[in-house]
């Protein structure tokens, strides 16, 4: 049980929030109170009530059902981005950090150049070129985040490279690929996992910002971001329309961030503060 001694209240809160999100997504895959895109012009702007727990929007669509579907869309985009960016970034970072020399120099210059573009603007420009749909959002966000991941993995690889067991592996005559896969990768994994958690939060935030700006997943598919931007004209009369998606984003990010902090403390006890 000592392994879990460090699970403080904030880790538990993070787990609870993320667990709740996952449960909602799972439930939403089979059942939502209403059809999330069914228009009911007879009942627009219903305040939160027994019929519509979180109210209805300007077209009479049920806000709870839309938020549930929006959770699934945000989650799948964020998960896709994290998977793609971690896979590519780990590969590139390990190469740069372990091989050093020209590979490292070229990769780092490219990273610096891509990092010079503000992430969201780069994603915007890429979406302008690739078109706005789910896969191009995943690709655009991945390209924007790839340099950060590559750099973190590289610096982890750089420090692992100097350890004795790497030298031992070299002396034993292992190929470089074998050394990387067998010794460097497993030891870099904790840093990668912590990074993946914070990336997930960034991806949720960026996706909702892109949707809010009108370049995210195209309507009628609901996302938290486009629900917020649709709600703007009715902010005063129907404030639940802007409050609900905002709280969804906030609670998701809070859960993911708390979980990330706890993970970092757990995996890297030296950094615990």
């Amino acid at each position, binding site marked *: 049980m000592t392994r879990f001694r460090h699970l403080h209240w904030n880790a538990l809160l993070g787990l609870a929030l993320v667990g709740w999100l996952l449960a909602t997504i799972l439930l939403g895959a089979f059942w939502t109170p209403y059809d999330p895109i069914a228009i009911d012009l007879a009942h627009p702007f219903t305040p939160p009530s027994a019929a519509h727990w979180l109210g209805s929007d300007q077209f009479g669509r049920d806000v709870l059902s839309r938020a549930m579907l929006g959770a699934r869309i945000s989650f799948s985009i964020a998960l896709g981005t994290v998977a793609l960016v971690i896979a590519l970034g780990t590969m590139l970072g390990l190469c740069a950090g372990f091989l050093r020399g020209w590979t490292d120099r070229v990769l780092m210059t490219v990273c610096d*150049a891509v990092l*010079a573009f503000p992430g969201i603007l780069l994603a915007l420009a890429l979406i302008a070129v690739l078109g706005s749909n789910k896969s191009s959002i995943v690709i655009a966000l991945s390209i924007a985040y790839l340099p950060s991941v590559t750099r973190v993995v590289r610096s982890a690889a750089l420090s692992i490279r100097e350890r004795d067991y790497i030298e031992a592996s070299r002396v034993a005559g292992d190929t470089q690929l074998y050394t990387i896969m067998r010794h460097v990768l497993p030891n870099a994994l904790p840093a990668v996992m912590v990074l993946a958690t914070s990336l997930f939060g960034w991806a949720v935030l960026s996706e909702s*910002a892109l949707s809010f700006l009108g*370049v995210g997943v195209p309507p009628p598919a609901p996302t938290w971001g486009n629900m917020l931007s649709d709600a703007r004209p009715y902010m005063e009369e129907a404030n639940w329309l802007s409050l609900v998606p*905002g709280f969804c984003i*906030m609670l998701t990010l*809070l859960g993911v961030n708390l979980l990330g902090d706890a993970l970092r403390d757990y995996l890297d006890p030296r950094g615990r503060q």
Partner: protein
Amino acid sequence: MIAYIFRRLLLTIPTLLLVSVIVFGLIRLIPGDPAEVMMGPDADPASIASLHHQMGLDEPLPVQFIAWAGRTLHGDLGVSIATGEPVVRLIVTRFQLTAAIVLVSVLLATLIAVSLGMIAAWRRNSSLDLAVVGGATIVLAVPSFWLGLVLLLVFGLKLGWLPVVGYVPFSDGVGAALLFLILPIITLTITESGVLTRMMRASAIDVLNQEYVTHARAKGLPERAVLARHVFPNAFAPTLTLVGLSLGHLLGGIAVIETVFTLPGLGRLMVDSVLARDYPVVQGCLLFTAVIYVAVNLAVDMLYPIFDPRVTAQ
């Protein structure tokens, strides 16, 4: 010191070169003939052909790039497809507003972060520290555009203290213009101070554990002097780097803020031109923000030795 500055300057050259290749290459990623895409679906073949020729699309790619880079270095970023205005003029006009908001917000956020972070680290595990850490954690989870909307709802609509929509240029009176900028600046300051406060607190805690702090206390230096002379400069160095990084990223984040508060800044220009497929403007904005980012971080690295002289002694 001179060698450090020189080395740091040299390092920006490949970065800037690659940045321009990326900006140039972006438009070539569009499937189909860029000229056709840029003119829109209603354009007649003759004008497409003329633009095709004008853009030099018949030439090989490296030749195109050199021609484009040459024009860019002379300050010619082309004209907007939508309005026919020179892209450079569009960017410069819009950037003033964005720069004002970003600079003030970053300055305020840094002040807040430094004071809260130092106090929290100094009184570690006190209730004040818990409040600062908790507050920063919550702030980190609040999307800036939603915070902006909520502030608009409260201070603009419910209380009616501040204007909700629109903008008055600085030329019509600084006071009137500031009234429209209060909420955007507050929003950006709050969202930025979260991550900076955490950084400042963490590095101040590190510094407080160093032997030279114990030594300074042991020799009888008043606590105020210990914090001001030993803890602050050493803890501020990493935070300063983060400030530089966030200045650059704020130029992107400002796009959503300007959308919330309907301000005609650089971010909004970029979003509007993406939506209108106005590629020369998109290209221009991207290049401009990237160059600003490189310049800001260069400046930060130049300031860094003031707080941490060790970096020049490599």
